């Protein structure tokens, strides 16, 4: 029982970290209709940024998020503006797959040049601290990450659902022509939206660098998980991706702790398959009337 509860705690904390990473991915995938294979690479870029800034300034990595967020935002905007915008709207969704994959490779290459491929960790001194609560270990960093991700998701949700900017982002994606006719600068909005999705990796990258050793190639492991979370949650459903991330975290932790880690991803994939077969739009994907 102790083991089960500890696994639940670990799983939800890890799930929180993935939710943080997936939030931007969900935004980009669901709302911008871009399958961003570079999201994992952006997370790693942010990890390195935090790492370097931390080494230079000694400031707390969580504080550095304030600096890294605008940098990641600009990186995202630039990616959208120079590489994704030129794609033809008809097949942009599919071609974005290729472009973002190339971006991921490019980022990996650039990082390998600057940082070599040594595994790095961000170590402010408390990265492995845990609170002992009734005999269970609650890792500090993951706990902060959990709170941070809930806060970020809340902000994202409000931004998209309740503000004029959010409306213009959604409008642009759903019908760019008519958004343009209503005075939305759809190019700027798309770039901004993509930048926003990428800027969430700043926080995710800091947390990732705190809890796991990383190198430029680490993005490969991230991306398939992020995609699965996004799909399981229902593309574009931010709340759904949180639930999916938690499901993944808890499921993997339980199977790893109780059965065997070699079957933990397998179990998760089976869950994903079953969910998709029953609900092809994911857990929280909305059913739309479509062309009927």
């Amino acid at each position, binding site marked *: 029982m102790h083991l089960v509860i500890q696994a639940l705690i670990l799983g939800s904390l890890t799930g929180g970290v993935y939710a943080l990473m997936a939030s931007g991915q969900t935004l980009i995938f669901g709302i911008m209709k871009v399958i961003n294979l570079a999201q994992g690479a952006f997370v790693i870029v942010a990890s390195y940024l935090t790492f370097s800034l931390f080494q230079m300034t000694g400031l707390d990595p969580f504080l550095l998020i304030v600096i890294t967020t605008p940098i990641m935002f600009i990186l995202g905007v630039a990616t959208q503006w120079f590489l994704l915008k030129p794609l033809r709207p008809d097949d942009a969704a599919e071609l974005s797959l*290729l472009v973002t994959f190339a971006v991921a490779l490019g980022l990996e290459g650039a990082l390998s040049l600057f940082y070599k491929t040594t595994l790095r960790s961000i170590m402010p001194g408390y990265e492995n601290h845990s609170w002992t609560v009734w005999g269970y270990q609650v890792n500090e960093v993951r706990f902060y990450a959990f709170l941070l991700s809930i806060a970020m998701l809340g902000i994202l949700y409000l931004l998209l659902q309740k503000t004029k900017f959010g409306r213009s982002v959604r409008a642009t994606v759903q019908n760019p022509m008519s958004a343009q006719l209503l005075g939305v600068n759809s190019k700027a909005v798309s770039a901004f939206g993509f930048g926003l999705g990428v800027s969430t990796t700043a926080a995710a990258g800091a947390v990732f660098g705190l809890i796991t050793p990383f190198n430029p190639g680490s993005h490969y492991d991230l991306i398939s998980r992020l995609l699965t979370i996004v799909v399981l949650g229902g593309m574009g459903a931010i709340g759904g991706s949180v639930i999916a991330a938690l499901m993944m975290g808890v499921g993997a932790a339980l199977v790893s702790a109780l059965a065997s880690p070699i079957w933990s991803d397998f179990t998760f994939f089976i869950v994903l398959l079953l969910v998709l077969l029953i609900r092809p739009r994911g857990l929280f994907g909305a059913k739309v009337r479509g062309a009927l």
Partner: protein
Amino acid sequence: MSKAGIIRAVTFFGILALLPLGVKPQWVINLLIFTLMYSTLASSWNLIGGYAGYPSLGHAAFFGFGAYFIGIIFESSIGNGYNPFLILPLVGLCAGLISIPIGFIAMKTRKDVFAIVTITLLFMVQTLAYNLRAVTGGAQGKGVAVPPFDPANFGRPFYYVMLILLLVAMSISFYFRRSKIGLSLAAVRADEDKAHGVGIQVTAVKLIAFALSVGIASMVGGVWGYYEGFIYPQFAVDPLITIGMVLMTFLGGRATLWGPVLGAFILVPAQQYFAYEFGATQFYLLAYAAIFLIIMLVLPRGILPTLTDRIRIKAKIAVEANK
């Protein structure tokens, strides 16, 4: 087939068939083997991912299936070295049969979800390859017996088998384009619900395309496993293989006959050459990514469609002029 088309095909395959007789260096043959391998993979992927618009990311699962099939049967002895090739049709048939129930379930979902479902399939197969140790050797890998071919012409048999597989894949691709199957697939790609509603045998054509597609991929996997000589789960069932075929198809042009081949003939040599020449300086990833982006920006729909579109537009102007 148009006259130009016949000439193109005969020249292409003619040159490739004669090439090993004149070209001796094994490194050239080796490079061509990988190029042909990816041409075939991309052409086969195109059947389902291009014509039907179902972007499978799980082809590497079948590729790996083929590799293990050969690896398991020919672990210790292969006679004169040609037996693994002879058994390939059986490999393809088995993969095709297995794919039918899988495809039936996976293609019930929407197309973007299909991509994720199939990549999930890939990871599941990889996990199985790791964990079914008794059959696959697990993480220890599985060796295939060494073929007794003359080192001076070692690559030649593999080369010709890959070439034949490419011919098969392209013939199917050509047939798809020219038959009602192809037309039905195009309709499925454009609007599947509507296609269903006008009585097209949607499920059947999708399954035919999927089965043929992965059947070929599995045969290529078999040859690969044999050529490589040693099969590890992470290399045989590797998402990068899938991504490779997808990239090449997109690059050359989806749903075209020559696009996937063109994509492979550009990307494979470029990739292998960059890794060989510049790899040590770590510029290779950057160079590879840059080439990619430039092509995507200049020829956003893939090379062939962009070119044919230009031609089509010229034709349209001509039509208008005649009006």
